């Protein structure tokens, strides 16, 4: 039986258990009822119901495209100041009108629902691309409930002797507050969120690594989070609801992205794949991905902590390292981005890897 996970409360429900509500013709008699209780497509009062389904647990509307396409949730975690919100904001821009849209011909990205559109325009597009300032820090789930950002990626899939079919992949991004990940705050919500995720993007902030901080001369903040601690926390959170033996490695694919690589240019050799453009042109290039994976793994071993990779490898069955820069250049101040604009680098690689694993895009060189 097909199930749907509510993108708001992360509870799983059978499709037939999703709720419908009476239409306006029922007036004061209007009520809610399960989809399976439809009588020849009509509500208990014999009238056509409202079209939109609702989550039986939280009562929020579920978009049809999300329900029918089996929306996939991608969780984004990272320590505070690792750039999660910036990454999400620039990622949508890149898929809509940036370099990625040029490399994946025919692909489109549409934000789903008024909430997502308004929130993206207000919290991401306006500060980053119109006002040239960083996005605000994500509030803790203790202070306000996180709102998902839902969008539909549509890929044209050619078919032999028939017109190409458009395959939608509805993706739900949750932007967590770094402080919630680093500390034991808002646990239940975070666990539900991670448990529901079919892919996790974990952002590693090199500026919070002591050696790198000295290397690049970052002095802006004093409270830094050990990135290894974030991985350990992630494993703990996922095991809270995992089934099976505790020793079994977690199956959720984990994309570990080293951010702000524009600051690390001098630590990368001239032959580094992180000094070359991405090769994901219309497909996910597995050779390029492996090259970057090994490069980042080697870099972490040299500049951060050799234990990091072992910890990840022992906790996750499937993981891959990435290197990216969301802005392309560091902000000139805490309130102003580089006046040259936003020019990301390999920003999309983690999502392309996950999409390839979901089967939404093809993989080359596997």
């Amino acid at each position, binding site marked *: 039986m097909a199930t749907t996970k509510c993108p708001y409360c992360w509870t799983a429900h059978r499709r037939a258990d999703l709720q419908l509500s009476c239409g306006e013709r029922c007036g004061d008699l209007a009520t809610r009822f399960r989809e399976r209780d439809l009588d020849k497509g009509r509500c208990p009062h014999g009238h056509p119901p409202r079209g939109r389904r609702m989550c039986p647990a939280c009562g929020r509307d579920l978009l049809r495209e999300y329900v029918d396409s089996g929306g996939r949730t991608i969780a984004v975690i990272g320590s505070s100041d690792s750039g999660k919100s910036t990454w999400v904001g620039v990622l949508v821009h890149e898929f809509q*009108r*940036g*370099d990625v849209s*040029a490399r994946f011909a025919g692909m489109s990205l549409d934000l789903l629902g008024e909430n997502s559109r308004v929130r993206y325009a207000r919290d991401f597009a306006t500060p980053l*691309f119109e006002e040239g300032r960083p996005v605000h820090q994500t509030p803790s789930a203790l202070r306000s409930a996180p709102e998902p950002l839902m969008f539909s990626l549509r890929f044209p899939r050619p078919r032999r002797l028939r017109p190409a079919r458009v395959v939608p992949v509805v993706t739900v991004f949750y932007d967590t507050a770094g402080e919630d990940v680093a500390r034991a705050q808002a646990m239940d919500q975070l666990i539900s969120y991670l448990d529901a995720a079919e892919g996790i993007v974990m952002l590693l902030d090199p500026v919070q690594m002591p050696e790198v901080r000295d290397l690049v001369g970052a002095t802006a903040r004093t409270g830094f989070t050990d990135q290894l601690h974030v991985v350990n926390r992630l494993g703990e959170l996922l095991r809270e609801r995992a089934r099976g033996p505790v020793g079994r490695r977690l199956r959720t694919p984990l994309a570990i992205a080293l951010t702000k690589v524009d600051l690390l240019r001098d630590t990368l*050799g*001239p*032959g580094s*794949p992180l*000094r*070359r*453009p991405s090769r994901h042109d219309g497909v996910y290039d597995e*050779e390029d991905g*492996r*090259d970057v*994976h*090994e*490069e980042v*793994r*080697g*870099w972490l*071993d*040299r500049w951060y902590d050799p234990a990091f*990779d072992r910890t990840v490898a022992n906790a996750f069955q499937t993981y891959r390292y990435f290197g990216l820069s969301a802005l*392309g*250049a560091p902000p000139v101040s805490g309130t102003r981005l*580089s*006046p*040259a*604009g*936003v*020019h990301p*680098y390999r920003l999309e690689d983690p999502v392309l890897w996950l999409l390839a694993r979901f089967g939404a895009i093809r993989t080359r*060189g596997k």
Partner: protein
Amino acid sequence: MTGWRFDAARFVDEVLKPVQDGWRPDEDLFRVYLLPLDVSDTGTVRAALDEVGRRFTDQRYRGFRRATEVLRGRHESASGTLLDPARRAAHRARVEAGRRRLAAAVRARLGDGPALPPREVAAQSRALKVPRGAVLAALREGGGDEREPVELPPAVEPVQWGEARGHLAQLRRDSLWDYLAPFGGTATAERALAARREELRAARSADSAAETTLLRLVQGWLAAGDLVGVLRHEVLAHLADRAAYGYADAAGAAREVADRLRALDLGGDPAAVAYAVWCRHAFAGGAEPEWQRHYQHAVRDRRLRTALTVLQQQPSLPAEWAGRRDELERRLAGLDEELERCRALEATDVEAAAAGYLDLGEVLADDRVAAGLERCRPAPPPSARSVVRDGRVVVTWRPSGATAGRIAYRVTRGDEVLAEAVAAGELVDPSPPNATPLVYEVHALRDGNPSASAARTEPVVVLGEVLDLELRGDTDAVTGRWRLPAGALGAVVTRAGAPVAGAHPTGFTDRDARPGASHDYLVRARYRLPDGSTAFSAGVVAGAARQEAPVAVTDLVAGFDRDELVARWTPPPRGEVELLELRPGDDLPEPGVVPAHRARERGTPVRTTGPGGRGALRGRLSAPGGRHTVVPVTVLGDLAAIGAPVEVDARQGPVTGLRTCRFGPTVRLTWEWPEGATAARVVWRASAEPTGPTDPEASTLDVTRVGYDSRGVSIPVPEGDHWFGVCTARSVDGAPVFGPLVLRRETATTALRYSVRRAGPLSRRRTLRVEGGPRSPEVVLVAKSGVRPMDAADGRVLLRLAGGDRDAEFVVPRELPRPVHLRAFSLDDSVVLVPRRPDDLIVRKG
């Protein structure tokens, strides 16, 4: 039996006497016939009518003949009224109304007092023409009574009491009683007063002077044995003052000073004293004899001789007043002796005589005192001198030797009095006449009485300067103007000691002054003195510069640096250059020299934002972006030269922050766009700088702002040095127009692929192969356990390929723990190696 009885005494007092004095009996027939007002029994009325009627002819009352005749003549009508109940009732109503009026009158007279003295009761009886009993009845009905006040000392003001009150006020003392308390009050002794006067001898304040005089007065009263009398007068005067506000105030005040009353033997009952004082105040009108008031006024005015005459003219003075008269006679005799002494002193010691007269004048008003002071003139100042200072004359003098009285000085110039009474030794004549010898006289004044002669100054002559001098520098000359002071005939103007041509009495025009330089002019007023000679004032100096024509700027170069305007020009020899931003739509100003204020009206000054200097400016225009016209204006004094305007377009400014970043075979370019720019051209060329946006040897890429913001600019280039240039671009009338080209250099590398494969199916040997490119670089293959080598030195070198070699075989040593990661590095900086299959670089076994 009616119970009615004839009362002979009442009949005389209440009937015969009033009728004899003119009272009309028909106003109250009940009173005439000695009947109660509420009588209703006709028998009683008849009995009274019969009995009283008989008395009208009784010979015992023949002394009241006029009254008895009147009563007899009205008896018949009276009988008719009293015997008729209706008429009697009407008459009773009228009588009752009359009695109510009486009660109101008596109450008004009593006020808030407890009683009326018998004399006042009698006076009211006479005045109201009612029997005394009626007054008393009305008085008691109003809560009062008839009472005789206690005896008080006569309210005679002691000699010099008014003066003593003044001194007490100066000392802020409420009463002499309080002042004398530390000295013993009524038992004050002469010794204590003398000791206090000794203490005050060194003091010079107004308070000490007042206290010294007060002590002298007290000593006088003490010597005359009248101190207690003075204190009694003080406390009774105090109660009298309060009695003016009513009996209640007087009674309250009496309770407050009960101790003083007992100490002064004025009675132990404060209420009784208060009643007596109140009676004296309320009912003593006309009681005090006229001569006493004349006496008091004379004493208050220090006319002691008049006061004595008043007392001497009274035929029978009471004993106390007789004693006062004798005392006054003795005192006047003493004052006369003092007058004579002062008169004698006039010949030998004028100041001592004047001091004596002044002392006498304080206690005695006498023509001889005034005449004596008139004769004792003060000495004049020993000397006086005058000095001309800033057009005014300062007169100074040494003080007069006179000491008695208030000494002041009167200063005169000719017949004009400059100051009537100056205390200081200096006076400034603010407006002396010019060109006239001036002599000043200074008289000493003693209380306004001038010295017989004056101190005179030597003559001085004032030569005033020209007035309201103004100089102005124009482009062709320096002009000046002024007003001549009174008496001046003209003026002389000099510059650097030489006379200025073109001067006239109230101005000059100097066309010979050198332009651009500052000049000092000396202007002196010219006078003719009484002796016919010519004299000049010291002169006034003023500076001015002849205006120089400013030089216009003709080579202004301006552009934008981000949103700031950066301008350069050749600085003119003199003057300040201002940049004006023309308002949109305004015509370009004609070059030329105009008044500075008119030039500034042509535009808005460019706001300076950074350090500039001569010939350079960094500033901000009124609105960022767009096209603007900037005009240089050279301001020199009041003139400005309008220079050649230039047009600046923010969209055509240079891009800033151009940065190149190499990503393998591509170069990413980023830059900051000028405000308002929407398009740019990217130009690149191998090995050489592009000559411009349209360099035919260079490659170009036109970029829009939208494309830049969406996808950025990445340019694939071959290996080697490349120059990249970026400039703004826009289309004007269909033709492309470019901004300044900003250049950067970047070196691109060549990427060659390499692979590692087993040499055979079961072989431990592996082959490294470098693919592509015209020539392979020198290569080193490094192995490392666990993780990928990050550079050529990060691991164990397994193989080296010489430049040009494409492949070679190698073996991964067994001793290296698996997995072993292999990686090839180019030793040529211009070539990078890219693995074909990264997984093949990991040796997990074998």
